[in-house]
């Protein structure tokens, strides 16, 4: 009996996750779907992927309530810093990327996140043909890179 083949997109998501997870100071990376279900992820020993995916959804929803009274369209990128932690949640429909890093991680982590989002977007495009969303996401990713460099 042959082993069940993993969906291609998950392999590709794993590449994006690995690219981020190897960066110094990154404690965990999760890609989840729009309901907060983990598609893939990687983290340090005690990093619980499911828990963080659910929290990311919760944070996006909690922030979204007052935020939508100010702005439409919705949140694309959310960064929260505490004295020890640096959380980034990036929404790239229909998936969401969460990166948890040490507060002191190098600012260039922004660039890696941006590039990973581009990878994710292209994989999503292949799989779901979400062309307009991806084009916007790529455009925003490029401008974001320029802004943070």
């Amino acid at each position, binding site marked *: 009996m042959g082993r069940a083949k993993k969906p291609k997109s998950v392999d590709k998501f794993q590449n994006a996750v690995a690219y981020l997870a190897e960066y110094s100071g990154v404690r965990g990376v999760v890609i989840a779907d729009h309901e907060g279900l983990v598609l893939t992820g990687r983290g340090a020993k005690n990093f619980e992927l499911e828990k963080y995916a659910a929290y990311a959804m919760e944070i996006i929803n909690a922030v979204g309530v007052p935020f939508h009274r100010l702005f439409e369209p919705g949140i694309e990128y959310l960064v929260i*810093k505490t004295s*020890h932690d640096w959380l980034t949640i990036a929404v790239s429909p229909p998936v969401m990327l969460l990166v948890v890093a040490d507060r002191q991680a190098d600012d260039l982590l922004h660039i890696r996140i941006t590039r990973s989002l581009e990878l994710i977007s292209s994989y999503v495009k292949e799989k779901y043909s979400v062309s307009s969303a991806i084009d916007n996401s790529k455009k*925003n990713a490029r401008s974001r890179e320029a*802004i943070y*460099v």
Partner: protein
Amino acid sequence: MFDTVEIDDRIAKCERILAADPQSQIFAALADAYRKSGDVVRAYDICHQGLMLHPEYASARIVMTKIHLAKENYEQAWTELQRTIDIAGRTRSTDLLEAEILIRRGQKSEAAAIIDRLSGSDPDDENIKRLLEMIEKEETTSVRLEPKTRNVGEPAFDHSPQEHAVEKKGISLPQAIGLLKITPRVLGVLAVGNEGLILEARIDSSYSKEEFGALSKGIYDNVVQSMSRVGLGAAFEVLIETAAAKIWIIKKRKYFLVVYSRDDVSMGALKLKVDELFGNIEL
């Protein structure tokens, strides 16, 4: 120099109109004529009284800004100018005045950034030339020593250490907010008290300052609640980006600083500027 006969004639005409109709907005022209004649005390009195009747008359606020400049009341000039911008938005005139006030206050790099932007659209503008001359004059008479001459157009946040130290010393919250607000692509800066009330704000938005401040506070509170459930510490910084805008909320000890900008603002430059302006400000 102004033609004194022409000025005297203008004063007489405006006086007659104002005498016939004390509610007239001609008071602004009259006050400006007195300012040009050198009688800034009379100019101030007329403009002040007129503004009591017409507080939203932006042209009169511009005149009042010029009167404060003439009286060397630079902080009042700054406040008056920001009030003008709040009422009628930014114009080339307000930008020129802003640059002049900044020069007078010794903030040449911020002034240079504005002048550089304005000269791009009209390099032959005599006002621009005058302001550039003022900067040069200030540089030669300034008591501050700078290690190198900064070129016009270099980013406003690129301060030399000496200048940095001087500007930080004694800067107030309204001043810091005013200075951050003139950073390119920054649309609003608010200081929101821990109770959600506005302490100080400069914002270009269809929302009221109060509404924007309360919603920003709401966003921060929701983040804090969520973070506590995750078991992570209290957030001291929240950055939210959409396709068109960014909102950056920074928790200070006794207030929140909220910076609202276009999506293409340079975050690196903005962070440096915020550190520079607000690093030492606590209430």
